[in-house]
């Protein structure tokens, strides 16, 4: 991708003239603003951005950007993105999805796009509810959740998006939250710089159907004690007074008191670890394991050939082999005339 050093764009260049139809106060506004704040400085020509979405509140996103966009069908944005990138690898493709779109109806495609290391960003807005269809439980809704479709409470175990991504072999996995725009922008920048699938789970508040779903770690008085912001090479220390730390006891993370000089035992984050284990442990904290802080930041970032690199490498080799006579058929004429033929006079 052609990258120039100086930015020729401002945020306004990426704002569309379309009226935004999300509910007032929706977390989606913050995400839109963060994306529009990050993309101008990436040094990518505006016409090379493509935003592709499925169906759901989040999937209206492409209409609010002034770039190329494709608002597709429910759950399938990743498949369309796969085709787009396979024809034009030079494009910067961003897929916008939600917890219902990406993990329920589109769950299959999520696994496969990630395992192939398709070179696009996946922004999964997780509000733990179906918003556009007016309030049914989603695959990330907590057990026992009462919604329109679960008046007696949900009996489904929820899925953890980060765990799915890591298990699928994601080369970039991060988590951020709509309330922390600064952090969200940092994560988006890192995702933009990543080569291959960049999966970002964004906790997003739906104030109409699932308000305060994340207040347990976003509310002012508790957030510092219930969340840990992780950075590569840095110890996992958190708490209002920076007095809590995470240590690993075997495979199990534990909270220890950092004020008492336990700093040596503190887990130090390594986002580039080849092994997926650490990312998996961190991604589960506070989501699948109660009593631990939720980790925000880049859980995993490793280098691996992308699907597109492998695709074009294979094509290049086939062309070279063909030119050197290593393949029997080269031209249309030769292909049509291949095999056993005979003349009729």
């Amino acid at each position: 991708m052609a990258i120039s050093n100086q930015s020729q764009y401002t945020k306004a260049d990426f704002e569309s003239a379309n009226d935004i139809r999300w509910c007032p106060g929706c977390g989606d506004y913050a995400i839109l603003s963060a994306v529009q704040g990050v993309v101008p400085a990436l040094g990518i020509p505006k016409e090379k951005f493509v935003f592709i979405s499925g169906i759901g509140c989040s999937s209206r996103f492409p209409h609010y950007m002034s770039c190329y966009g494709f608002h597709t069908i429910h759950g399938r944005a990743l498949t369309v993105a796969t085709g787009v990138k396979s024809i034009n690898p030079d494009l910067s493709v961003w897929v916008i999805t939600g917890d219902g779109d990406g993990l329920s109806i589109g769950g299959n495609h999520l696994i496969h796009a990630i395992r192939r290391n398709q070179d696009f960003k996946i922004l999964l807005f997780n509000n733990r509810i179906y918003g556009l269809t007016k309030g049914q439980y989603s695959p990330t809704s907590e057990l026992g959740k009462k919604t329109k479709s679960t008046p007696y409470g949900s009996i489904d175990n929820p899925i953890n998006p980060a765990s799915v991504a890591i298990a699928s072999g994601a080369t970039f996995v991060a988590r951020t939250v709509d309330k922390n725009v600064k952090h969200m922008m940092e994560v988006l920048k890192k995702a933009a710089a990543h080569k291959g699938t960049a999966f970002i789970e964004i906790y997003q508040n739906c104030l109409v159907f699932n308000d305060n779903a994340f207040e347990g770690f976003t509310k002012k008085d508790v957030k510092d004690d219930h969340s840990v912001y992780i950075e590569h090479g840095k110890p996992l220390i958190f708490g209002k007074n920076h007095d809590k730390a995470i240590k690993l006891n075997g495979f199990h993370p534990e909270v220890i008191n950092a004020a008492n000089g336990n700093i040596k035992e503190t887990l130090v984050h390594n986002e580039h670890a080849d092994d997926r284990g650490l990312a998996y442990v961190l991604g589960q904290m506070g989501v699948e394991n109660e009593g631990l802080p939720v980790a925000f930041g880049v859980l995993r970032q490793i280098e691996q050939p992308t699907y597109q690199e492998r695709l074009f490498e294979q094509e290049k080799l086939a062309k070279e082999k063909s030119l050197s006579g290593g393949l029997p058929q080269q031209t249309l004429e030769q292909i049509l005339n291949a095999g056993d033929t005979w003349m009729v006079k």
Partner: protein
Amino acid sequence: MTLTEEKKEKKIETLEEATIRFAGDSGDGMQLTGGQFTNATAIVGNDLSTLPDFPAEIRAPAGSLAGVSAFQIHFSSKEIHTPGDILDVLVAMNPAALKTSLKDLKPGGMLIVNTDAFTETNLKKAGYEENPLEAEINQKYQVFPIEISRLTQLALEDMNLPGKVVDRSKNLFALGLMYWLYTRPMDTTIDWLKKKFSKDPVILEANLKVLKAGYHYGETTETFISNYEIKHAKLLPGKYRNITGNEATVLGLVAAHELTGLTMFLGSYPITPASDILHELSKYKNLGIRTFQAEDEIAAIGAAIGASFAGGLGVTTTSGPGICLKSEFTGLAIKTELPLIICDIQRGGPSTGLPTKTEQGDLLQVMFGRTSESPIPILAAATPGDCFETMIEAVRIAVKYMTPVFFMSDGYLANGSEPWRIPQINTLPKIEVKFRKEADGFYPYLRNPDTLARPWALPGTPGLEHVITGVETEQITGKICYDPQNHDAMIKIRAKRIAQIENDIPDIKTIFGESKGDLLILGWGSTLGSINAACEQLLKQGYKVANAHLRYLNPFPKNLGEFLKNYKKILIPEINLGQLRLLIRAKYLIDAQGFNIVGGQPLKVNGIVEAATKLLKA
């Protein structure tokens, strides 16, 4: 080896045509045997038509009725249309094969059986209480009981090969024998074996020995009094190759990739009988054709749509069940007006149905199987070779009118073969593709007044940034729009856009018969051969009958309504319960009658002749 050297004192009878079937267990190599016989027959210059017929199970229990695999070939010194209704020769490698195929052998026909396979166990598995070869079968047919397994063993006895290897080559004995019986040269099979076993000289030697043993058996034993010659057919001059429908479909796609200059992208998911298209097209990466085996049918079409959005030529290949899964995305391609080729290689249904058998059951599904008003062009190939030209035409329409297009084939066309006159490259149509470049005056839905196509504006083009969506959009601007008048207008524009393609396709014409008459036999798709043959017979009998065939199922040719009025009665034979008939009756208010047999097999010529005669006399 030439024919004259081999004939010795046995006399050669000249025949006009023959229909033979190799039938055996799934593991007996009948498809390979039939394929080899076909190649040799093509090289001789006969016209031919084949019908491979194999079970859906990879290996059904050995010796069982369900496990019978058969390959039928009809070849002639005249032009022929079908793989044949009845058999002149049946080669039955075991009792189950005899049981399933004997009903198709004509009285007095030749029955060649491998008696070694007629053991008590095999007879029981085939449901025979006693050995049919010892019964009155000998009075009805010319039976040639041959110990094929033992003769194969004898041919190889000095080679010390494992019993399994020996047994596996017995099909070549049968092939060699049939080569002698029909005076075919063995060269194509010898060359093929040499290539296939170039790294395994022992197996090669064994296979050649058995093949020749079969040939010499026919020549030297007293069993056969004569053998047969079928002179080459007078086909149109040119260079020919034998081709299956799936092969021709692939060649059509390769040609379209070259003729359009677009990068072809095939998104596909394995499904019988379409998978071979994915396999074959995947070999052409050197031409820049990109193939993607997706995680499911939906992803396959989604990726193809994404490819077209980005300026490639999206293609997806499947069969009926896959079309069901692709319906929602097909609607999106219709709504966003992107070119796309959707190939439906139909098979028996509903549901899983008969995966390896043929049917024309999907016409109404591809015509109507989506939400709301979602018109789409539909083209159907009529013969294996016709898949080539029909595919190029489908691509031409898709690109010119910015629309997804259905390409219809079926299991019979996909696997059946015929001699195909290889086209000259310079006779293929040029397909012009225009991408929008100018930003001035650009709107995503500002249509070309002639074609009503919207501009193809590719991501990456400065100044044309726009969003396309499945949500209803405003005319011209393409912005989301819920206005009632706009929706009504868009629905009607979409309908008109496809309907007006009738101005850009050829009129329908009669194939056999006069332009006016008592009866028109109208068909579509793979029934062409059977209908042609039936019409020829009826004409010989003096009936005022004609036939015509539809490649374009949507829109229909512009003259179709007028054309149908030239005949007093209309008969529409289909391998479904009357799907084209429903469309014809609805559109033209004509009392068309049907001939409908849905048995997973091509229609029999005699069935059509009977139905036509009955209708003519009614």
